[in-house]
């Protein structure tokens, strides 16, 4: 089953959020999901410490030497592997990309994110050339406005598509529920059904956004 790698040398772009949303949604579709937390900030480990959704397994503290064998051992029939990487330009990132069936590059709609994120896209293309096989990759815009698509976002999408880069629709909207997943653990469905969880946001809309995002990723894995 596929290996999905979240890659961007920039921190804070939403790699861990994407990983959590995909893991939760794929697990809800009854897939056996293994999430590899390769980020020294341990965002996914923190999320898991509050409780993992059924069907999700976490492996953490994976370094440069362990990344390839760990992906290989986690991969198997009926399993989806999701790799959350550190937000730096490291060999850990380049090695993980080499094992991917799909590389997702999250990017906020800002010039800085686009510039740094494009390093990951360039690396994927160079690895494709070096390895002689294609590595599917796509950008997802994150922390976008729920109300309107900004001019910068429109221009960035246009530039990316113009350069032949696959842009995942929908983007991930800035939702309090997404960030609060790391405080409560579990998934958005559990959050919506538990009145004890105070999100201060619209969980139902966050869930619809996450499901549409997972569906778009699924289409790219077929």
């Amino acid at each position, binding site marked *: *089953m*596929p*290996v999905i790698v979240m890659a961007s*040398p920039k921190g804070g772009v939403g790699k861990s959020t994407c990983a959590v949303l995909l893991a939760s*949604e*794929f697990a*809800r*579709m*009854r*897939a056996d999901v293994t999430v590899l937390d390769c980020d020294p900030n341990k965002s996914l480990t923190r999320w898991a410490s509050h409780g993992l959704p059924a069907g999700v397994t976490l492996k953490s503290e994976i*370094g*440069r*030497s362990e990344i*390839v064998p760990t992906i*290989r051992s986690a*991969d198997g029939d*009926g399993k*989806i592997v999701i790799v959350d990487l550190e937000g*730096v*330009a*490291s*060999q*850990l*990132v*380049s*090695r993980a*990309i*080499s*094992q991917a*069936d799909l590389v997702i590059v999250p990017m906020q709609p800002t010039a800085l994110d686009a510039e740094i994120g494009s*390093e990951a896209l*360039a*690396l994927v293309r*160079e*690895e494709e*050339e*070096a*390895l002689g*096989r294609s590595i599917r990759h796509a950008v997802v815009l994150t922390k976008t406005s729920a109300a309107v698509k900004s001019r910068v976002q429109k221009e960035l999408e246009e530039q990316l598509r113009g350069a032949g880069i696959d842009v995942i629709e929908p983007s991930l909207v800035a939702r309090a529920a997404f960030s609060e997943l790391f405080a409560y653990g579990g998934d958005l469905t559990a959050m919506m059904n538990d009145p004890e969880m105070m999100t201060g946001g619209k969980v139902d809309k966050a869930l619809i956004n996450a*499901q549409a995002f*997972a*569906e778009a990723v*699924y289409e790219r*894995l*077929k």
Partner: protein
Amino acid sequence: MSGSNRLAGLKARPKDTTVEEVRRVDEVGEARGFLDRTPRKKPGRKPSPRTHQLHPKVFPWVGEAIAAEAERLGVTQGQLIELMWEKYEGSH
């Protein structure tokens, strides 16, 4: 997405994971600034464990007694030996 396991039909593409392939990936990454950023361990020899041994020829119970007295006085064994040497010199 429905609850049915549509994902079961998904397949991973075979990927070689030879040492040569990893080396090529590292080279491509390094050329773009994706370097080995594994935290380095502290350099140098690790400190030896304390044995309380003053000298190989000192009987262990004498060494232990000196270590216990130094600890009681809140000084190092070396400082205690210096005090003992002063007394020894003063007595001759």
